[in-house]
């Protein structure tokens, strides 16, 4: 079996093994082992990729192609470039961290880990696919477990949030489906066969009229998952109601499918459509960036703060992609990764705080640093990285995005960039206020003596996420090497 298909097979096997587990102990052990293997494979893939790239100069490497439905020319085609390798690594780390954070999942543990890993399977499959149909299948597989994950193990108005999230995301994927069919039936514009293969379609000159029609469908279909304003409303409610590990996976990984799909499908296959619609969506993305940041200031629930911060930061990803140049794009990819790790860390920490104090209201929290030093310290670090302090991944990403934005000589792009930059300041406001209030301020909790320290599994989960954040921040070159080469073929069509 090829190295990429294993990325789908291993989680599926883990799920099958989980079916036979009896209690929490067995379930978490099996999930941990499966996710460990997966992380090992992802790390191995990074090295294998660099090695392969020296001898193989094609856009995608480790390609594997199997015919699935012959008459529709549907294939199971997989392949990776530097970007997907990085995304796979992100997913593997966040999933493993998520398993550690859910170490004490008492209610229906088996079902919880099964749903979690089905979600992971969808995400892995999505990142390795280069056939539109296969990709779409994995996309939906990744979304639907969210309903159960939030609905069963969530808190607060979980049924409402779960339904809202699922319907909005599935509605988006339905719109996407129309777009995909549109691309498919135009993939013979140059006289070839109809195909779902991305690399094949990219060579075809799809008529401008079709691009104009289908770009918004494909773009919106993916961008809803990337929390594009005004379709972001599922995200804060969903995050707030979801259990910790699900919030981590959701904000850390699942939402990244949006940005990834936008450049891999929408902009790569429909470049003229992207140029036509780019400015319109750029405005929406910029609104999302600023709006998300301001909305975060007004929240008092820790999870809502982070959810809106995610809207802002992922809006930045879409914003950068719509800038349509190489610097901004590399910023967008790094931002995706950086945000993935950081937000997963944030949600993990919030989960730990909530598990101890039983509140997420910042008015009722204070001085946690004194009683929970580990959690407090990591929280401060995460916050600093989040607001783009040099030395962490956030800085590298945002630097690239804004430099890329400013490379446009015209007023329109520059004004929007300035607006988006202003969100950094706002981010600093809510992060610093938050840290000041709940970490540094006077003690608010009554039973301060009894709060347990961070356990080994919580620490492991956090450290897993912290290492890459620092690695990207201190030595960003290995990552940008991997990404830059891979961006080139995808951006060719859209550079003005």
């Amino acid at each position: 079996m090829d190295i990429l298909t294993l990325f789908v097979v291993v989680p599926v096997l883990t799920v099958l093994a989980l079916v036979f587990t009896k209690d929490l102990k067995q379930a978490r052990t099996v999930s941990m082992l499966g996710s460990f293997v997966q992380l090992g494979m992802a790390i191995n893939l990074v090295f294998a990729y660099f090695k392969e790239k020296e001898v193989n100069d094609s856009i995608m490497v480790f390609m594997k192609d199997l015919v699935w439905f012959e008459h529709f020319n549907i294939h199971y085609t997989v392949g990776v470039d530097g970007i997907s390798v990085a995304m796979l690594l992100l997913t593997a780390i966040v999933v493993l961290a998520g398993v550690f954070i859910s170490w004490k999942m008492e209610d229906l543990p088996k079902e919880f880990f099964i749903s979690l890993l089905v979600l992971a399977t969808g995400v892995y499959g999505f990142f390795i696919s280069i056939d539109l149909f296969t990709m779409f299948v994995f996309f939906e597989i990744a979304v639907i477990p969210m309903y159960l994950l939030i609905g069963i193990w969530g808190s607060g108005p979980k049924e409402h949030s779960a339904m809202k999230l699922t319907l909005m995301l599935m509605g988006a994927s339905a719109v996407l489906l129309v777009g995909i069919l549109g691309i498919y039936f135009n993939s013979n514009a140059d006289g070839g066969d109809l195909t779902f293969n991305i690399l094949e379609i990219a060579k075809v000159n799809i008529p401008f009229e079709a691009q104009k029609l289908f770009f918004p469908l494909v773009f919106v279909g993916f961008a809803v998952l990337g929390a594009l304003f005004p379709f972001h409303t599922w995200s804060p409610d969903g995050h707030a109601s979801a259990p910790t590990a699900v919030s981590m996976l959701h904000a850390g990984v699942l939402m990244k499918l949006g940005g990834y799909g936008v450049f891999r499908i929408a902009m790569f296959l429909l470049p003229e459509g992207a140029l036509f619609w780019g400015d319109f969506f750029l405005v929406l993305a910029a609104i999302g960036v600023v709006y998300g940041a301001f909305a975060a200031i007004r929240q008092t629930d820790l999870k809502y703060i982070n959810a809106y911060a995610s809207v802002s930061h992922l809006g930045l990803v879409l914003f950068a992609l719509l800038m349509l140049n190489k610097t901004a794009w590399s910023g967008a990819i790094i931002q995706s990764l950086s945000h993935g790790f950081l937000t997963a860390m944030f949600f993990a920490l919030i989960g730990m705080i909530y598990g101890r104090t039983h509140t997420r209201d910042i008015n009722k929290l204070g001085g946690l640093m004194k009683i929970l030093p580990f959690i407090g310290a990591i929280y401060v670090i995460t916050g600093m990285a989040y607001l783009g302090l040099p030395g962490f991944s956030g800085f590298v990403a945002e630097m690239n995005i804004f430099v890329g934005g400013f490379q446009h000589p015209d007023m329109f792009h520059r004004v929007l960039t300035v607006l988006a930059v202003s969100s950094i300041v706002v981010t600093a406001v809510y992060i610093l206020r938050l840290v000041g209030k709940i970490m540094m301020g006077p003690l608010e909790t009554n039973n301060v003596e009894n709060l347990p320290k961070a356990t080994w599994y919580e620490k492991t989960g956090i450290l897993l996420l912290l290492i890459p954040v620092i690695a990207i921040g201190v030595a960003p070159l290995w990552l940008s090497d991997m990404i830059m080469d891979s961006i080139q073929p995808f951006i060719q069509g859209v550079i003005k």
Partner: protein
Amino acid sequence: MDFSSFLLMRHEIILLVITLLLLVAEIFIPQQKKGSIVHLAIFLFGIHTVLGFLGNVEGALFGGMFRNTPMIHFFKNVLNVGVLILLLQSADWLQEKMVKQHKGTEFFILLFSSLLGMYFMISAGDFLMFYLGLELSTLPVAALAAYETSKRISSEAGIKLILSAALASGVSLFGISMLYATSGSIYFNDIAEMITANNLTILGMILFFTGLSFKISLVPFHFWTADVYEGAPISVTSFLSVISKGAAVFILMILLFTVFKPLMHVWENMVYVIALMTMFIGNLFASRQKNMKRFLAYSSVAQAGFILLGIINGEHLGFATVIYFVLVYIFSNLAAFGVVQAISLKTGKENMDDYEGLYRTNPKLSLVMMLALFSLAGIPPVAGFFGKFFLFTAAASKGYYLLVFLAVVNVTISLYYYLLVIRAMFLRKNENAIPFFTNKLYMRLGLVLTVLGIITLGLYSPLYDYIFELSKNLM
């Protein structure tokens, strides 16, 4: 005498023999052992189903009134598999409830007669055979709907069904007579050659279409559906919603694609509008239902709307996608009805509220239900997703992007109400949840078969390719 003509009608002949055998068995089996007729019927029908898969035959009989093509043969097998699963699922109900009321055998005789009618209907080569088949398939079902005579609601369902069906077949017959008036023939092949787009022909086609729309329960001819589905015994409801509907879709499609092909510019508009109405009304009504049978009734109305997206394609791609979808739909809907049947038999509960907390007491049944609903909603990787995706592809290949867009909006609406059931089963906790129970062998087998179908039909692509090849020869 030429025996090959027997071979051509072997589905019909074997089924007739089985029906007669059961009639004889009814007379000779003593009263206290009547329960064994259920075993006998399932055994015989199982053999019949297996025999159906042995070899395809092609040809026509009675001067072209009856014909058999590989596609028709395949579809009869599909119907057989559906009926077999249905029999497995209803075996317990028959043994526990109906045999005691001295009514075991009639169920099979009526059901098989109806199936026989469907065979003749889809094998028809002219309108006479078609009409005979239509009547033979409808009348026994009306008796079946009123089968639980102890329940008033069941009798009501029977009356409603027979009245609507009589009206529908009358309208159909009127349409057929107009077609005969303009073309001078009742043979499909002759009409196909002579048909022109004059007003009387078009009116004939519309009336004919209307008659079949009743059977498929397309909006606005769906009004009988919910009441009949709710009142009839669950086995009969699933028969109506999958087998009867599937057969009607099949013959409608053959006629639209061959006989009425020259009028495609007329019927495609008709199908377009009806597809939209059927999807929207079916889905919006389904989202308000509390009774599981009514719920599934409206869901099946909506599914019929999706089927029209394949029909509007008008070519063999559309044909293949619809047949594939019907196959998938049979398995998905039977799984859903099977669970409803099992729960209703043990507890008598049929409301969505009663399902709350079901997963914690009966996890396996809940999982079957979840798979069935995901398949109906079109969530990958289960078969329903592939069925729907291909239907949309068929419609999009003709440029109906707006229709596909509205259809995917409907998929999202339908997902909402399918999730309501999943919410009740998985998300809710309930002190008075339906307690744990085990099913008997037949029911288990019936559910396992549907689950296997739901999981494999989509991922196993050669099946679709096979149907696609068959559909090429149709035209």
